[in-house]
């Protein structure tokens, strides 16, 4: 389980995370939702150690992650996979080389074993006949899928996704969501997803945390979210006119 306690993070005097405490359930898809600028990405980057927090604790099971040095963090980091908003594939490497990169860096597998693993991961995310292509030759959806293949190549225990659906059409977004959920169940990963896409929330949200101004405002699951009393959450959930109309009809 991953948990954070009393996290604080400021940039130039502007407080982005405000004494936030959360826990994420193991083997489930945990969604962090909130408006743009609410602190979701800073929270995620703090959890994975890309940002140093001002104060507070980040726990991976029984390990206090944010007090470890670079070498000690490395052990936990090899158990992490991350899907970035812009995919973050290495431009100079082909699809195949991108997925093989963590295997080259952290395993002593033979080239044949690495190739098998690369092809398995690419097949798992439905990328066929694209091994030799460069990221610039892929569509947005394909880039996300290759990034997922890279993230799962080392069988991670934890998967972090920052806005996995941004820039994708609704159908591709649903496919990416379904893929993340399937992989979470298949590998029993603890998955944390940052999103403001309500489709994702309703499709894959096993545990949902709503944050606003760097603070946790609400926590629940997809069945509870539509009947919440939290006003800021309702403003967010029923922000678009179709949702508003459906809510009024329902009432």
């Amino acid at each position, binding site marked *: 389980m991953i948990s954070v306690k009393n996290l604080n993070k400021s940039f130039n005097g502007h407080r982005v995370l405000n004494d936030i405490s959360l826990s994420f359930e193991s083997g489930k898809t945990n969604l962090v939702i909130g408006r743009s600028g609410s602190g979701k990405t800073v929270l995620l*980057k703090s959890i*994975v*150690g*890309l940002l140093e927090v001002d104060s507070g604790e980040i726990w991976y099971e029984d390990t206090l992650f944010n007090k470890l040095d*670079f070498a000690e*963090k*490395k*052990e936990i*980091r*090899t158990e*992490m996979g*991350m899907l*970035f*908003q*812009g995919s*973050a*594939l*290495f*431009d100079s490497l082909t699809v195949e080389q991108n997925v093989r*990169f*963590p295997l*080259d*860096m*952290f395993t002593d597998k033979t080239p044949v074993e690495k190739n098998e693993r690369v092809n398995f991961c690419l097949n798992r995310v439905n990328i066929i006949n694209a091994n030799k292509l460069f990221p610039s030759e892929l569509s947005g959806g394909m880039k996300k899928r290759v990034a997922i293949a890279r993230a799962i190549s080392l069988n991670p225990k934890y998967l*972090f996704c920052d806005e996995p659906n941004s820039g994708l059409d609704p159908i591709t977004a649903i496919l990416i969501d379904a893929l993340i959920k399937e992989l979470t169940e298949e590998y029993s990963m603890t998955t944390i997803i940052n999103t403001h896409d309500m489709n994702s929330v309703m499709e894959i949200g096993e545990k949902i945390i709503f944050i606003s101004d760097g603070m946790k405002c609400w926590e629940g699951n997809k069945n509870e979210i539509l009947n919440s009393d939290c006003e800021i959450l309702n403003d967010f959930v029923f922000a678009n006119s179709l949702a508003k109309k459906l809510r009024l009809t329902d009432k």
Partner: protein
Amino acid sequence: MVKFLTQVGLYFLFLKKVFSKPEKPRIYYKQTMREFVYLGLTSVGIIAIISFFMGSAITLQTAYNTENPIYPKYLIGLGCRDSIILEFSSTVAALILAGKVGSNIASEIGTMRVTEQIDALEIMGVNSASYLILPKLIATLLFNPILTLIAIIVGICGGWVAGTLSGVITSENFIYGIQYAFIPYYITYSLIKTVFFAFIITSVSAFQGYYVEGGSIEVGRASTKAVVYSSVLILLFNVILTQLLLS
């Protein structure tokens, strides 16, 4: 002043990160070979062209300035040789490389930073500074002296071609001049300067790219800063090294 000192401190911490133990030396070796091609071999053309024309210009200028009959003609060859070995092949070539290689390094690493590729490396547990920059440093430290030797040879050839074709000096006089009172240490001096300049170009440019925050505008600014700071440091160290090595 505080900002300047902070940047200097950050630069040395960055170097510490760059020189920490590589995760997998075999992968670093592959990267280094790749950088030999991208940063070294692709610079041969521009260095050769510029050296040729600089050698030509130096020869013609020396001829113009030594028109007095009391100066022996072979001085033109000697002047061309010494100018190229002492100053052009190392310092001027380094300034050219600061523009070509420095901006390339800063923009490549800066783009990797703003597109989160460096974050992706960090998440995997890879020391991104070492993985990305150490191979570039090794490649430039080893290859730039070769570029300097190419610049010397091509520059002197350029001088010979311009001198003989324009008729300001005969081939025999020019060849006598480039052999006259030759001090081999000048080559060593030039190569030592080149190694220092290669380190400045690569590390300063990589530093500018590595700490970029923002988007494409900031990457462009980092690229410009990389060229400006590298050039200023090259000129400063040129003076210091000349005093230390030639006095």
